[in-house]
């Protein structure tokens, strides 16, 4: 990229876009973003203009047209895309501000500096925990009592894990003193001890960063509810993937909240992560779920690794384009649709 300078440490452009893109679209005036903050949809190898045909670029004036081939559904989807783009920008701004304060993610038990991407020391406090809330619309749950799935054992010497560590992390994972990470933690709402799923930066750096980004936006999701897996998990996964563009080779779409939780599903944040990392996390969750039943809650806590600071850039969390409408309610969209229908 000749046109601009990018700092991988901070995941941020250091020089403004030399070309004002899309003056009719508010995101176009944000000169330090990359490709309208939508790297999954556009690329910009030169730094001067993103590569995509104009018809596919966000265009709020076209969002309400019926030319997308999908009738009203298509129009709604276009609105969703445009709003989602804008919302990502707002989310970035909020995230950056929170990072500067350095205490927005009280669930980070890094014990020191958190990653350069987020910046600032974490407090390690627990004020961020709240009772269940946040995401809705996920499928699945204890009703009907799906059978407990067989747990996949976690084997740190697993050949796949070792290959991944060598290829991606450049060597074996540094051993962690897991005794400092208790297996349970009291739920501030009920006082009940809940199991904890730690997302270690040293083991799954991309997933760690993704999780941290998601919790920065939605701290209530630091407590999730296991849905028992099986069909519920499959449906949540499939719902979260609908309407999403292809994932790069070697990566897999990761969801947060997980498909295996009641909070997961169509509203889940998604990002692409290396399949090796996802496999490691799968083993960890499998161990966690072994002692849980559908409906049980657990904490999700990202753990920074100051002694092994792998700074990992991940795409900002994205959500399903139809569902991510923070500024326009569904009834409002229906009214808009009716207006255009007549």
């Amino acid at each position, binding site marked *: 990229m000749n046109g601009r300078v990018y700092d991988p440490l901070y995941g941020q452009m250091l020089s403004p876009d030399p070309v004002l893109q899309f003056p009719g679209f508010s995101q176009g005036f944000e000169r330090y973003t990359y490709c309208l903050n939508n790297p*999954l*949809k556009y690329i910009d190898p030169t730094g001067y203009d993103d590569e*995509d045909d104009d018809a*596919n670029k966000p265009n709020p004036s076209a969002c309400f047209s019926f030319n997308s081939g*999908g009738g009203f*559904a*298509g129009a709604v*989807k276009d609105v969703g895309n445009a709003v989602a783009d804008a919302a990502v920008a707002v989310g970035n701004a909020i995230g950056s501000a929170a990072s500067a304060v350095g205490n927005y993610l009280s669930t980070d038990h890094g014990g020191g500096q958190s990653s350069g991407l987020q910046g600032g020391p974490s407090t390690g406090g627990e004020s961020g925990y709240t009772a269940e809330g946040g995401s809705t619309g996920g499928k699945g749950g204890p009703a009907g009592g799906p059978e407990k*799935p*067989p*747990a*996949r054992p976690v084997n740190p010497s697993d050949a*796949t894990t070792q*290959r*991944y560590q060598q*290829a991606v992390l450049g060597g074996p994972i540094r051993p962690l003193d897991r005794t400092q990470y208790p297996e349970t933690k009291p739920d501030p709402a009920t006082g009940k001890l809940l199991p904890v799923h730690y997302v270690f930066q040293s083991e799954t750096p991309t997933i760690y960063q993704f999780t941290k980004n998601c919790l920065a936006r939605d701290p209530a999701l630091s407590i999730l509810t296991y849905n028992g*897996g*099986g*069909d519920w*998990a*499959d*449906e949540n*996964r*499939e719902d979260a*993937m*609908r*309407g*999403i*563009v*292809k*994932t790069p*080779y*070697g*990566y*897999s*779409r*990761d*969801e947060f909240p997980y*498909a*295996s939780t009641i909070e997961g599903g169509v509203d889940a944040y998604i990002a*692409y992560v290396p*399949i*090796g990392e*996802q*496999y490691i*996390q*799968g*083993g960890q*969750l*499998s161990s966690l*779920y072994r002692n849980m039943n559908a409906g049980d809650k657990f904490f999700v806590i990202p753990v920074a690794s100051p002694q092994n600071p792998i700074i990992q850039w991940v795409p900002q969390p994205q959500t399903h384009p139809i569902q991510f409408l923070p500024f326009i309610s569904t009834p409002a969209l229906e009214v808009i649709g009716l207006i255009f229908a007549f």
Partner: protein
Amino acid sequence: MANKISNELEILIKNLEPLNAPVLKLLNPPASESQILLFLNKYFAGVLISEEIKDMFLWHNGTATDYKNPTDIFYLFPGFFFNSIEEMQNIMDAIESTYKVKENSFLPLFSSGHGEYLALNLKDYSNNPDATPIYYLSTWNPELELYTPIYDSLYQMFNTVNECFKQKAYFVNNTDLMLDKDSKRRKQISKKMNPNSDYWKR
């Protein structure tokens, strides 16, 4: 092209036509025989080349996918699109360190586009196609191993897919006009037609 896999593919297309499935316009032209052999010899040296597999790519060289459109439009049946030879090469190179695809002789014929694949062991398939399962390769599901048998054979996979269309377990969603499914019915059909596959036993 006259074998039972080809016949199932023809039935599949007939199932998709009345639904106006977007993929019908997105299937690539056939690959050339030399292109197929070059690929198979590069990644599966010494493995007997199955005529049925070769015929699949002589039918269509997979799907013309891109990074602009939702993967749903590429799906030949809900959840998966047919990989082109080029796409398979990219996939095999990218997932080798996790799945050891060469060692396992995995041919990832279908992709979800989100990190899940349907693959068969080409070596086993060449020797005994009816007893070679289709594996579901994924890392997202904590319940599953890296690869889990999902269909009892390639033929049985297409047979199951066609049965799902026939029984309306697969259909077009009126909201977005994409292929969709009735998960419960799909599972019932798939479990019955693939009694040896662990995926449906969960």
